[in-house]
């Protein structure tokens, strides 16, 4: 057999007659079959080129996007419609209200607005007039709005623990953008860092309700429950989790239960204001369980990690910006 025909067989440009005689000739010979398969694979592997098939690729992408998009669009549209309707209704009512009843609804106006924030690596506690307290975790900000009718509204980013005194005369809610958390005399923790995919709520004591933007009740949470809200799919998932895990930060502890090294490093980065680079990909997925005091230095934490496993690290001090920790 000639070299040319063989190459044509491999790149599929051989005629039917050529193929027929070739495949029949190797069918009986298991040695030759094996060799053909290896050559075929080598040929394919060596010709995997991203620049081939450009024209088909564009069309294919359009069809792919059409396929995935209806589902997503619907979701977005649904939500959008819902919100749009709400906005329209509010616009319409407020317009009417302003038009027909020129006097302001009493109590709706904001009478006081305060913002609290904490830096990376610090936990702060805010005491409110009524004896309620709010703890702010690392890199967190909480904005409080007090309205004339006694209603309190908080907006936040980061992680905060709310310990609120029960007061039937005062309504307190946290506005998370897509939904609201309404408290009915409680202790609860909300974790809502902007760079994380979800918002995580733990209830320690009392009762809280989740409301939609339009104040529709979505669900009620009981103590010991843990709610994960996925920002992208807008899905809420309720499960059970010991609330002391979520609130351990308040007592100066990191609690990692079955967390991957990359999740742990994300936490450490936030707290110690360092940048951690994990060079070894397999290490990043290794899971650890441990409790670490937040007052421990990063060096000690790294030393602990290097004791338990094959982790090595180096720290580069930077004059400007965060120090870099390399894990390898």
């Amino acid at each position, binding site marked *: 057999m000639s070299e040319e025909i063989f190459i044509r067989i491999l790149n599929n440009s051989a005629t039917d007659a050529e193929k027929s005689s070739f495949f029949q000739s*190797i069918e009986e010979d298991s040695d030759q079959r094996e060799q053909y*398969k290896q050559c075929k694979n080598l040929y394919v592997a060596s010709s995997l080129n*991203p620049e081939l098939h450009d024209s*088909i690729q564009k069309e294919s992408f359009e069809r792919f996007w059409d396929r995935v998009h209806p589902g997503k669009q619907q979701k977005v549209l649904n939500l959008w419609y819902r919100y749009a309707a709400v906005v329209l209704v509010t616009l319409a009512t407020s317009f009417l209200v302003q038009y027909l009843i020129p006097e302001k609804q009493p109590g709706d106006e904001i009478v006081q607005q305060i913002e609290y924030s904490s830096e990376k690596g610090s936990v702060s506690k805010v005491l409110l007039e009524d004896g309620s307290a709010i703890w702010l975790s690392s890199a967190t900000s909480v904005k409080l709005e007090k309205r004339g009718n006694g209603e309190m509204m908080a907006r936040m980013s980061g992680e905060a623990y709310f310990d609120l005194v029960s007061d039937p005369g005062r309504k307190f809610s946290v506005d998370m953008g897509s939904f609201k958390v309404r408290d009915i005399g409680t202790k609860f923790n909300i974790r809502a860092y902007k760079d994380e995919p979800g918002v995580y709520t733990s209830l320690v004591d009392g009762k809280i309700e989740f409301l939609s933007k339009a104040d529709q009740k979505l669900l009620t949470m009981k103590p010991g429950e843990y709610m994960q809200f996925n920002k992208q*799919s807008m899905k809420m998932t309720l499960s059970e989790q010991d609330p002391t895990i979520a609130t351990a930060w308040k007592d100066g502890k990191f609690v990692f239960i079955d967390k991957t090294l990359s999740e742990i490093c994300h936490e450490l980065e936030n707290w110690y204001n360092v940048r951690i680079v994990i060079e070894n990909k397999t290490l990043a997925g290794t899971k650890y369980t441990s409790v670490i005091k937040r007052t421990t230095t990063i060096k000690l934490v790294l030393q602990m990690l290097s004791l338990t496993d094959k982790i090595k690290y180096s720290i580069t001090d930077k004059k400007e910006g965060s120090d870099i920790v390399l894990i390898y």
Partner: protein
Amino acid sequence: MLESLMKAWGIFFTFIPAMDPAKLNELTISLQKGEKFAYEEIYNDYFGVIYHLSLQYLHDTTIAEEIVQDSFMKLWEIRETLNDQFNILSFLYTITKNNCLNYLRNQKIALKHQENLRYLEMQFNYEALEKMGNYLEFEVLRGKIDQAIAALPADLRETFLLSRFDELSYKGIAIKQTISVKTVEARISKALRILRHELKDYLAIIYLITKLLS
């Protein structure tokens, strides 16, 4: 003979350049969010590779494209679980390979008693694809190839890269480098000899080709 085969196949040099990790990281976040530009970018970078894979074993453009599109659908479905450790190309490659195997399995059953020629071809392609390594193995190989090329003596490397990547003819290279065509030929065959030696553990099967042809 081996040289001419390698040349005809363009062996070694079509491996996909690895994506810049920082860019990949940003892209992963956008993929999670389902942003169109990110999927378009992944399509641009990877479609050719996996489409080629499925076309080479199926020999049917419509079905090959459909299978590849399904692989991207899978990526879309799992987008929320993506992270920076996730090898997207390897994922697409594996899904495509499995779907091609499924397709070939079903097809060859249907063809068994009808078309002997196509049946045999599918049977062999099926068996070959089953043995095809995973994408990570190619990445390892690519690393070795890059290393071996980098280790070539400078003059050989320069001539060699011109012929492989810029696809210049020997005459074109001779003019560009102001050397004779004979020198170009000599350098390239020397470079191939060195590479073959350096990569012998990884490309052992290349020697089988000569056996098969003799």
